[in-house]
């Protein structure tokens, strides 16, 4: 049954890729159909809890194909299918033939391939084929990011992504070949007994970490996610970086861990969470803000995963399981609200043509659907009850707090809790800013004033996502059961222990809260009906003529917190002050550089460039020196042999 649905899914995607260029409608149908098939298969696995294995009868690249779909991969497959399907629907209007005659066909084709390759990454249980799928995934993502490759910044972002991703792939080359060299087979599976493999985990962490966008390795992420078309950004941010997480989760579950792995992941997680959200808060480009927020969420996931690894070392299922459940739930949650948010940002971009928040504002009037749905996403991503974001973080917090309560892994857990709290509050600030600046208040520019709501093809996907978000928030118990199944796949030795997460009570409280909310809302609205309302200018302490330019901008909103992180963000601000009695226009331009990239990576790349220049000088075109090189070659080798001692 599973085999059948998965085959259907694969075939559907391949066909879709085939017809993508010419028949958009059929492509849409096929992609959605494939997504549904994949979703069905994944959900079956998640609910029944048993894995699906398949071995091919033929060799591909000298290896027998071996597919495995177990709880973990099924969970991630859910993400792929959800965003793969909804994104296709969204793109059908957002990146339509009419607006992008050149790139739309390509886009559809690569979309199907990307979805397919990610599905393969999740199912391949043979190192060689895993690398196939991994590269296919990386490349199709590249071509999606560079759909608008006539724009220079898009090309730059794309190349940066490609370079970073290839660096990661090289680490994976080393990782998988070392595994194969040590274990003698390309096939992947639990290898806990071979402790000699433990150091290899660092390679995996580096290789997958680049894709996951964990902090020092995230340099490619903001520009790529911001530059790509929004449905692609959604796919990248909600699903693609999760492939990196998948890799880390997968192999941390299968391999013997180095002693310090857990601590390292905790540390990296804290770093990513705090600094990621700090960057996000400072951005004034809404899509860059969302991109950096992904770095933060990856950090949260890593914190929890690191704690679970520690739990394995301490043999403490009661907090390990809580944290691990948090990992998987947060993976799912982040996928949901981040794709929702990127879709929302996309329709804003679609309607106003700008991503710069300080040119937006007051969009709720013209785009009520987008505004409301984006708000839901914002509340969820800030981890506020009663939505799914809180449920996930709640589980992670529980893992941490229990560790603290048992006075274990303190060095990791205590700072992690504080970092989580801080980043949570910063996330709230960031998204209060995003919603407030973009959708509330008065329009700051003409396009913002004259924007128009996106069509149903664009907001229905958002609506569906929002529904799931609310559902997880109100009925966490329902979703925790399968999640626990996934946890059991990662740590079978813990299957017996019940972490006693009070999810049902939490769900109950959430529901009561929601009911009271509805009641209260209803009450006050009726009350106001009776008392009556008057509309008037914003009072604004009596200022007579408030104008849109007097509003707080994204820069000023983030000012305080940005000041705290100035050591890292290094904002570049250009001010033209007001002068004279009848001053001409004043202005403030500010730019938040990607510090790691511009202050660390680029300079070191420049150094490499110098070295390359030096090397290039050797190719000066003067023949007699070329012959000298030959002579030197002889002497050098001769010395090598003489010194080699024979």
């Amino acid at each position, binding site marked *: 049954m599973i085999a059948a649905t998965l085959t259907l899914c694969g075939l559907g995607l391949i066909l879709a890729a085939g017809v993508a260029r010419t028949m958009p409608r059929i492509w849409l149908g096929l992609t959605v159909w494939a997504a549904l098939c994949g979703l069905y298969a994944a959900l079956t696995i998640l609910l029944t809890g048993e894995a699906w294995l398949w071995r091919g009868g033929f060799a591909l690249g000298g290896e027998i194909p071996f597919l495995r779909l177990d709880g973990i991969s099924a969970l991630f497959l859910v993400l792929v299918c959800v965003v793969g399907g909804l994104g296709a629907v969204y793109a059908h209007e957002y990146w339509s033939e009419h607006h992008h005659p050149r790139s739309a066909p390509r886009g559809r084709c690569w979309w199907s391939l990307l979805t397919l390759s990610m599905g393969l990454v999740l199912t391949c249980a043979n190192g060689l084929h895993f690398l196939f799928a991994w590269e296919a995934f990386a490349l199709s993502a590249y071509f999606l990011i560079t759909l608008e490759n006539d724009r220079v910044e898009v090309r730059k972002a794309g190349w940066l992504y490609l370079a970073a991703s290839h660096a990661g792939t090289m680490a994976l080359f080393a990782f998988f070949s070392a595994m194969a060299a040590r274990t003698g087979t390309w096939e992947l599976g639990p290898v806990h007994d071979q402790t000699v493999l433990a150091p290899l985990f660092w390679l995996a962490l580096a290789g997958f970490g680049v894709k996951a966008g964990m902090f020092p390795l995230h340099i490619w992420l903001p520009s790529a996610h911001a530059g790509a078309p929004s449905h692609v950004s959604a796919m990248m941010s909600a699903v693609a970086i999760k492939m990196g997480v998948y890799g880390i989760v997968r192999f941390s579950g299968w391999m013997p861990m180095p002693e310090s792995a857990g601590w390292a992941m905790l540390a990296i997680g804290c770093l990513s969470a705090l600094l990621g959200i700090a960057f996000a808060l400072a951005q004034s480009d809404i899509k860059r803000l969302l991109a950096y927020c992904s770095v933060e969420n990856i950090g949260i996931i890593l914190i929890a995963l690191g704690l679970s690894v520690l739990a394995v070392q301490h043999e403490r299922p009661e907090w390990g399981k809580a944290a691990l459940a948090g990992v998987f739930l947060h993976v799912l949650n982040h996928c949901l609200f981040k794709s929702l948010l990127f879709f929302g940002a996309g329709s804003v971009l679609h309607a106003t043509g700008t991503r710069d928040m300080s040119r937006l504002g007051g969009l709720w009037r013209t785009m009520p659907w987008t505004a409301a749905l984006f708000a839901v996403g914002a509340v969820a991503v800030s981890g506020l009850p009663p939505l799914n974001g809180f449920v996930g973080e709640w589980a992670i917090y529980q893992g941490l707090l229990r560790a603290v309560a048992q006075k274990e892994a303190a060095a990791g857990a205590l700072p992690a809790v504080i970092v989580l709290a801080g980043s949570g509050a910063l996330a709230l600030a960031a998204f209060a800013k995003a919603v407030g600046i973009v959708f509330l208040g008065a329009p700051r520019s003409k396009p913002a004033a004259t924007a128009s709501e996106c069509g149903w093809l664009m907001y229905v996907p958002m609506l569906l996502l929002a529904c799931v978000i609310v559902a997880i928030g109100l009925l966490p118990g329902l979703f925790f059961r399968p999640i626990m199944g996934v946890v059991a796949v990662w740590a079978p030795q813990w299957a017996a222990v019940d972490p006693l997460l009070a999810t049902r009570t939490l769900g109950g409280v959430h529901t009561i809260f929601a009911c009271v909310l509805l009641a209260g809302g209803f009450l006050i609205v009726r009350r106001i009906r009776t008392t009556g309302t008057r509309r008037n200018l914003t009072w604004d302490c009596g200022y007579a003529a408030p104008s849109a330019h007097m509003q707080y901008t994204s820069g000023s909103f983030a000012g305080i917190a940005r000041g705290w992180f100035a050591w890292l963000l290094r904002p570049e601000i250009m001010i033209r002050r007001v002068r004279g009695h009848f001053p001409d226009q004043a202005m403030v331009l500010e730019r938040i550089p990607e510090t790691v990239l511009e202050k660390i990576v680029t300079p070191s790349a420049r150094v490499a460039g110098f070295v390359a220049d030096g090397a*290039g*000088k050797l*190719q*000066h*075109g*003067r*023949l*007699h*020196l070329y*012959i*000298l090189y030959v*002579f030197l070659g002889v002497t050098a080798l001769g010395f090598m042999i003489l010194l080699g001692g024979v």
Partner: protein
Amino acid sequence: MNDTLNLLIGLAMGLNLLALGTSRLPVLIRTVAVQGVLLGLLPLVLEVHALDWRLVLITLATVAGKGFLIPYMLTRAMRAANIARELEPFIGYIPSLLLGAGGTIAAVALTRYLPLLPEHTGNLHVPGAMALILTGFILLIGRTKAISQVCGYLILENGIYLAGLLLISSTPILVEFGILLDVTVGVFVIGIIVDRIQRAFDSLDTRKLTALHE
């Protein structure tokens, strides 16, 4: 121990110094030619007790090729380009000489590490070959006129030929001929290209040939 042999090789090595020292291309070419003839005669001296037709053949071929054919071509090219002197070489004449001398000494010193067969012990084969090869390299590296470089290449070949004489008794004639043929053709081709370059750039100064670089 074979005195005539060593005498000839010694002469060849002396010619090296002349080749390194001179700035006049005709002299250089003639030096190379003489050196070629000297080395060409070696087989006769070497295998004097077992003189047979194949040795004569090789000798004739070598002498003809190295002594007359190639020098003639080079002279023609030189005339066509009407240059007679190697001006501002990359490595000056005195340094070249010193290098050459030092190289020769080093060569003699180094050969002690290479075990020789009884029949070659005491002969100047290996040191001579090394010295010639070094000289060839010095000319190739140190001169800027195409013709001088070709001469350097020829001296290099001479050195290899000298080394090859170690095997003359054991390697089959066919191989010898093949090798000879290749070398000759190779130099022919070089000659042709020199000619073409002379036409394309109407000069034989290789410093002009630096259009291709990074």
